[in-house]
């Protein structure tokens, strides 16, 4: 019997196998950031261990960084210490680092692909659950905890249990105004936040193949929101073209591509589970609750908890509506928004900025709405400025910021105030995720842009 794509990559990275033990998996690349690495480097120091492969490791600063005045000393002393700690660790252990102000600084999952160090057939880890983003290139990429970060630094391997495989087939074509973000929000609403637990998801089908690399990254990025540690897409010509010309594209491109072309699921391979989704009927999607599975098409209304048959789901919906300050039956399009956030590892790439800019060009932001535009990396920021997108956003009335995770997580200065409501292109609508008491609706860049114009959750079709 043939193998799935995930099984091929997994098998190519087994260093050691023994009965009853997890496979010892070789890791081709570890991405490092300030929040989940300090204790790992401390562990190395305590044990007198070195970083085995500094040349397969790269660090940047993203989570706990400001997006304004980035070249001034960081105001919060605790944040400053965390950033300084990463810089000192990188120096001590000989690791490449891209710090604030550097051309390659940015959200770790935007930086890897733009440097061309994210390639098909790799195993990639990072102390961040959205490492699944890199699966868009046909790599097994997953988030790990700090103990595992230390393990990979010391050994370049990770003991791992072979996951099960799930295929999500998305056939058909998306309607105009419907994007990769809507596909993944619809998938999570369908299978739930635990639906992918224990699986590597392979996204397949014509609608997936039609997506750009940016769109594929958006889909794989949110695999973790469906409970799957990793999600991937078979590489194709689009993948190869994206890598070609990037700084770290293989010198022997032909040899690399010959291997990459073997990376697909064999016709006679069996997935443990298969799920189908129809792209033709998809609508722009938005979340109404406090987990990413609580989503609905934008044309729907806030659900009534009493309509949920499962008692757990009913209780969760009741709590979510209370936290979100929403009343059952309210059309989602009537929900007024205070803040629009465009950015993050989910939707902070150049294509996302272009999409939003195309909607708002020549228009004015709704009164009392603020919009933060945060490029995923300094390179994305530079590219956007070259295209004049910064001016489009500024003329519209949005704020044009420096690169970082920004308002995706309530850690750095960019946060929602208590009770404030956002339409956000990020990945998590958990209670307090964007700041204590903040209320988050997850949306695509197109919906974010239309919402900023109208002040209520909207799609470009409503303009």
């Amino acid at each position, binding site marked *: 019997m043939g193998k799935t794509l995930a099984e091929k990559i997994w098998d190519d990275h087994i260093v050691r196998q023994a009965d009853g033990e997890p496979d010892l998996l070789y890791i081709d690349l570890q991405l490092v950031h300030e929040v*989940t690495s300090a204790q790992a480097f401390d562990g190395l120091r305590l044990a007198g261990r070195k970083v*085995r492969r500094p040349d397969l490791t790269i660090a940047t600063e993203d989570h706990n960084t400001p997006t304004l005045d980035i070249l001034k000393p960081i105001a919060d002393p605790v944040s400053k210490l965390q950033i300084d700690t990463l810089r000192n660790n990188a120096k001590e252990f000989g690791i490449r680092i891209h710090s604030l102000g550097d051309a390659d600084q940015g959200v770790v999952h935007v930086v890897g692909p733009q440097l061309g160090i994210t390639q098909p057939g790799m195993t990639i880890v990072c102390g961040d659950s959205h490492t699944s983003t890199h699966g868009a290139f046909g790599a097994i990429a997953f988030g790990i905890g700090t103990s595992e970060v230390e393990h990979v630094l010391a050994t370049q391997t990770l003991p791992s249990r072979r996951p099960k495989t799930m295929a999500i087939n998305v056939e058909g074509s998306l309607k105009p105004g419907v994007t990769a973000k809507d596909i993944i929000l619809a998938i999570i609403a369908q299978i739930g936040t635990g639906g992918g637990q224990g699986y590597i998801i392979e996204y397949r089908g014509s609608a997936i193949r039609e997506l750009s690399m940016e769109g594929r990254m958006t889909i794989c990025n949110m695999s973790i929101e469906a409970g799957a540690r990793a999600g991937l897409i078979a590489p194709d010509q689009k993948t190869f073209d994206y890598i070609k010309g990037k700084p770290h594209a293989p010198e022997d491109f032909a040899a690399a591509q010959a291997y990459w072309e073997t990376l697909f699921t064999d016709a006679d391979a069996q997935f443990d589970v298969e799920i189908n989704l129809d792209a033709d009927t998809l609508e722009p999607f938005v979340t109404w609750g406090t987990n990413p599975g609580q989503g609905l098409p934008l044309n729907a209304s806030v659900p009534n908890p009493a309509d949920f048959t499962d008692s757990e789901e009913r209780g969760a919906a009741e709590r979510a509506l209370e936290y979100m300050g929403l009343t059952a039956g309210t059309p989602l399009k009537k929900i007024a928004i205070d803040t629009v956030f465009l950015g993050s590892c989910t939707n902070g790439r150049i294509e996302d900025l272009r999409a939003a800019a195309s909607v708002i060009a020549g228009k004015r932001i709704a009164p009392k709405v603020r919009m933060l535009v945060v490029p995923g990396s300094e390179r994305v920021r530079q590219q956007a400025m070259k295209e004049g997108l910064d001016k489009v956003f500024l003329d519209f009335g949005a704020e044009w910021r420096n690169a970082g995770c920004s308002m995706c997580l309530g850690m750095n200065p960019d946060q929602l105030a208590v009770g404030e409501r956002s339409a956000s292109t990020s990945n998590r609508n958990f209670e307090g995720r964007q700041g204590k008491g903040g209320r988050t609706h997850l949306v695509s860049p197109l919906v974010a842009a239309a919402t900023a114009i109208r002040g209520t959750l909207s799609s470009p079709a409503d303009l």
Partner: protein
Amino acid sequence: MEKFIKHTGTGVPLRRSNVDTDQIIPAVYLKRVTRSGFEDGLFSAWRNEPEFVLNKDEYKGGTVLVAGPEFGTGSSREHAVWALQNYGFKAVISSRFADIFRGNSLKGGLLTVILPQEAVEALWKAIEAVPSTAITVDLETRTVSYSDVTIPFELDDYTRWRLMEGLDDIGLTLKHTDSIDAFEAKRPSYKPKTLPIRI
């Protein structure tokens, strides 16, 4: 890592599902560079609600958290495990854990025990009726027991052995450095490297 063989303590019923790691410890508490002191951030958004279970006198000193399904979803932050441990929890029981959180907990010696949802419901009722109910989580026999109830749970032999011996994973892997060397010798040269830097 401290060995885990058997633990007996009282329980804390957390009747919520989908408790993500942002609820266990919000991002604003992740700025520290140590592994200790995270207990003040544990469930911080709920700690000022008088009705929240950790604020109730009868559950003070509880060491076994009994949680709803999908516990630990979201962010990979191991700080969630440290916060629970720093607060004093030794074990967490749920019908479903998110993968990364479970991996982190078992690396760090916080035992996460999967029981069927009916067993979790029964345990909630027992603790709520008698908060001083002693709960024993026994890794030797792979059972949870309280009052006259004993429920078996599954945990693979390898992880159980590692926890019972308190073994450091890195130390175990470093015994196989020869295998890693051999693997690296055969890695294709087109695989990317981060150094030297190319622009």
